[in-house]
């Protein structure tokens, strides 16, 4: 793409050419030709200056690891030029989505990039917010030599990062500790050691669980697997309200929803440490929660991606005997009603209620009154304000 500088030089050449024709001064023809030649030579030499440039980005130490919010991170970005041709005066911007919004873009300038050479850029940052991130393609621009023609090249350096929400170790959730019951054997099939019964063999069953006596009785015609009684502890149902409440979806991490996700992650961490089987229930059909008991990693992976885009009020699916911890980023009466119903069914319920009026960009809602109402109806409630340490 020719720049204004090329146009100015060509116009100068035309003017000189005009005067050369008028005066028939031979040197003016030479000057005009050289000035035009400068532009054309600039075009010729500028071709392919950005060809053969590739990029590589390394996040952290290069070993696949887990990334959490607020983790310090080192990113190394390397730009290499293949081939003998050199390039110079390259402008580009490294756009890091993991950084704080105001610090995501870093303009870079490469005065020289020799052939078969490389430049590296290493920078530190604190991972700003949970989520799934992909680094955008890089746009390289140069006007070398002499700025007559501007060339642009987009190179893709595919880099993805999944950032888990911040997890704060909760020393103790008294609600859960009070509810601790010994392990009981239930008359339902599940995970345990006591044989509960037999059933038809299903592909995938462990060969060690095949009941060979029964198989012998059928003359080897059918296979039967042992069924074990469920001996797990009563599960913890973690309910996270993902309804699209007002002012819940922002780029900032200082909003009630993000805090609700952190609390949910921290509760999940506590359940993991206490060996509570954890079931997650949400009200987002777009990204439904994983079914059944989920490992902590799955919880984190889900919470890393989740967004408050639900169109239905919070739903809590409880299999009997479970405890319920609900995290409400917004004092939603409908959610409160659901929790009250659970209490009426004699289920232990703990509700973390975030107070939106205490956050930056506050909402005019009375979360304290909501929490008090829940508490009065038997729902154990914990009101969390912005800046508080909910782990205490």
């Amino acid at each position, binding site marked *: 793409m020719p720049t204004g500088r090329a146009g100015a030089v060509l116009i100068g050449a035309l003017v000189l050419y005009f005067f050369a024709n008028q005066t*028939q001064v*031979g040197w*003016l023809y030479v000057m005009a030709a050289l000035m035009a030649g400068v532009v054309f030579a600039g075009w010729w030499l500028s071709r392919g200056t950005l060809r053969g440039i590739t990029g590589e980005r390394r996040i952290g130490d290069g070993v696949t690891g887990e990334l959490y919010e607020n983790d310090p991170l080192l990113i190394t970005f390397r730009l290499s030029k293949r081939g003998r041709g050199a390039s110079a005066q390259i402008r580009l911007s490294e756009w890091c989505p993991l950084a704080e919004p105001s610090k995501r873009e870093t303009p870079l300038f490469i005065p020289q990039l020799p052939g078969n050479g490389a*430049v590296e850029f290493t920078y530190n940052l604190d991972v700003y917010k949970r989520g799934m991130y992909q680094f955008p393609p890089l746009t390289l621009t140069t006007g070398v030599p002499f700025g007559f023609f501007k060339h642009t090249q987009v190179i893709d350096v595919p880099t993805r990062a999944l950032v888990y929400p911040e997890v704060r170790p909760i020393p103790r959730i008294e609600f859960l500790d009070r509810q601790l019951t010994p392990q009981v054997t239930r008359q339902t099939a599940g995970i345990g050691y006591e044989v509960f019964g037999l059933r038809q063999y299903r592909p995938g069953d462990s060969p060690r669980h095949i009941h060979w006596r029964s198989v012998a009785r059928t003359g080897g015609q059918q296979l039967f697997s042992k069924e074990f009684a469920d001996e797990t502890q009563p599960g913890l149902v973690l309910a996270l309200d993902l309804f699209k409440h007002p002012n819940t979806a922002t780029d900032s991490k200082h909003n009630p929803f993000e805090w609700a996700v952190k609390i949910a992650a921290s509760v999940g961490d506590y359940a993991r440490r206490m060996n509570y089987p954890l079931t997650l229930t949400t009200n987002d059909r777009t990204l439904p929660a994983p079914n059944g008991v989920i490992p902590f990693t799955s919880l984190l992976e889900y919470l890393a991606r989740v967004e408050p885009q639900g169109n239905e009020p919070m739903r809590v699916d409880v299999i009997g005997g479970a405890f319920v911890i609900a995290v409400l980023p917004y004092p939603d009466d409908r959610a409160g009603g659901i929790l009250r119903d659970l209490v009426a069914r004699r289920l232990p319920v703990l509700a973390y209620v975030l107070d939106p009026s205490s956050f930056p960009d506050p909402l005019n809602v009375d979360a304290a009154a909501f929490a008090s109402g829940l508490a009065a109806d038997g729902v154990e409630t914990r009101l969390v304000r912005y800046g508080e340490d909910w782990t205490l």
Partner: protein
Amino acid sequence: MLDAKAQSRQDVKKEIENPETKSRGSARLIRWMLIGMAVLLVIVALSFELWVMGAFAILAYMLSRMFAPNMGKKSRIRQPERSVQLRLFAFAAQSVGMLSSAYVTQMWGVFLISLVILAIGHIAAYRYALKPPILMRIGTAIALHGVFLWMYYGLLNGQPYPQIQVAMLAMAVVGFELFSRLNLFSGMAIGLTNLYVAATLSRDVMFIVFLFIFLGLLLAFMWRADDEDGMRDNPVILRPVGQKAVRQWRGWMARFAVALPVMGGLVFMVTPRFAGHPIIPPVTINAPIRGGVSSQIVNPAMPMVQIQGWSDQVGEHYYGFDTRLDLSYRGGLSDEVMMYVRSPAWSYWRSHAFDAYDGRTWIQSDPSVEVWERDGALFDLNREGVLWLREDYFVQTYAIVQPMPNLVFTAGNPIHLYIAADEIGIDKTGGIRLGEPLRPGMVYSVMSLRQDYTPEELKSATRNYPPDIAPYFQLSDTITERTWDLAQELTQDAPTVYDKVIAVRDYLLATYPYDYFPPPQAPNTDAVDQFLFVDQRGVCEHYVSAFVVMLRTLGIPARLVSGFGSGDYNAFTNYYEVRANDAHAWAEVYFPGYGWVPFDPTPGWNGSPQTGAIPTWVFSELFGGTQLPSIQIDDAVRSGLRLMLYNLEYIVGAVVGVGVLWFAYRVWRRRKPIQLRWQRITRHDPARVAIFAAYRRGQKAIKSYREAHQTVGEHATISPELKEIAALVDIAAYRTEPPDQAMVEKAKRFKPRSP
């Protein structure tokens, strides 16, 4: 002592002393003066020739952009430039421009002065880039005008190349205004202008060296500017990993050094040339030759002793540039370049002719000259009113290098002469004389009709000669019988006059060898006879004399012409380099209906030295002589331009006057609202007058007077006794409505007392 008038003056003074206002003020001064020049030129254009003057107005605006570049909105390119390296590149490029001008003109003194001024200007501009002192800017504007006045002084006093001195000095002075990146670009553009001027005068290939150096510096400037911009715009700069920093710019420059000549050469080859039809007629701004013309030919190279017989000396004196041409002279001519001629068409450069031969000497039978006055900017030689088509003319420009006779050399049939002289003299043979010899550095131009007659056309000419051709039949009594017989013998089979002319010419070309030093002429002999039958060798004058004499014996009018041959053509400079030893004599033969047609019977020269074809394009042969369009202009356009150029001093004076008036108006305008307020307050509003008077009395009573830098309120803080009246003064000075009567009464009763 306070009153509104003093208050107003303080406000004005603060505004004037504000650095922002200072720099704006002087920039406005320069800008408005130069825009005034452009406006005046546009007005002239509207009065005369719209588009040509408009082009000059645009050029003036472009010059104003160069000379007063601090105009327009703020942007990076207009911010003060703090890079020393960029400034050095710009300074070097400008210096090369000046050096090229100095080299071609040998004006080293002006160059050194300009160089020093430019260096100081750059230093000052760098130092004061952030806040230029108003005195420096005003001084620059004055110095710039002084430079132009120097040009007029130089023109009137015959200084060499006054315009080039202006170009160098003006660029040097403008160095004080080169604050921003745009200014530096403008400075280099002025350097390019100096190169342009040098290009028009350059006679050798040294110019290409200056050109390449300038281009190299310009490109280095651009590279460095892009580098610095990149480092300034981006906080993070990445260097190559694992290897030493490579000075890649050298590699780029090396590649560019190869690509540029290739690309430039290609463009040069394929660019068509519109030769011979300039839009702008030749102009010369020189001190006019004021000497009166006479029939005398003054030849500065005339030796003190006229040598007859043999001479081993060589010099610049050609005896043909005289009122008489003595065929007995001998002597060589040097290789000294006498003049450069720029012409789109090949030709001989004619001075004058001789019509009378006495056996040894050629003279002009009627040596009188007709004095012609200049017609505006030119001498219109087309007295016969020949109708000519625009495609038939071509313009030659003669640049004199060595002192030359007071003869104007021309080519073809001259119709317009552009020379800085009040009058010229034209002799009977069409030779043009000046009042004084041609001086080195003098430049003049001639617009001529081409002489391009085909043999068929000349063969068709009749023998109906007009009476004024009679002198060209003159024959000396010394002509021998055998000369007559030879002429008859050579042409007995030639049916037409043209055929006879060619027969005689070809015989001389083929028969007699050229000899720089033929034997001296014997006394009491006819030079033509001696040449034809005795020596049978000679120089050009002998060939031509024999040619003319033999034609005259056949009743064909002919004459001997002196002048210069074409010289050597330099393809780079586009000049014909005419040396002393290119001095030559040839013949002209009259053909009714066609005029005098040149022929040259001298071996080694062009037998029919009519005007050569005007080359159009290096590939014109390839395309079968493709006719390129010519650009037509009207006489009205040209006359308007000439009128402007010859009244330039009045126009410039008018522009300066307009500029001064405009500046005065602006200053007065700035004061006007304040004066109006002062008038309103002090003369037309007694209520305010009363309050101010009370304030004055109060100050006088406590002997505490408000300082010029204090406001009324600030003074009242120091002198609280005046606090009460200070409030009333504020109301009186700044409220639109006049104070009411209660306030006036209160003011009148005011007595300062301690709070």
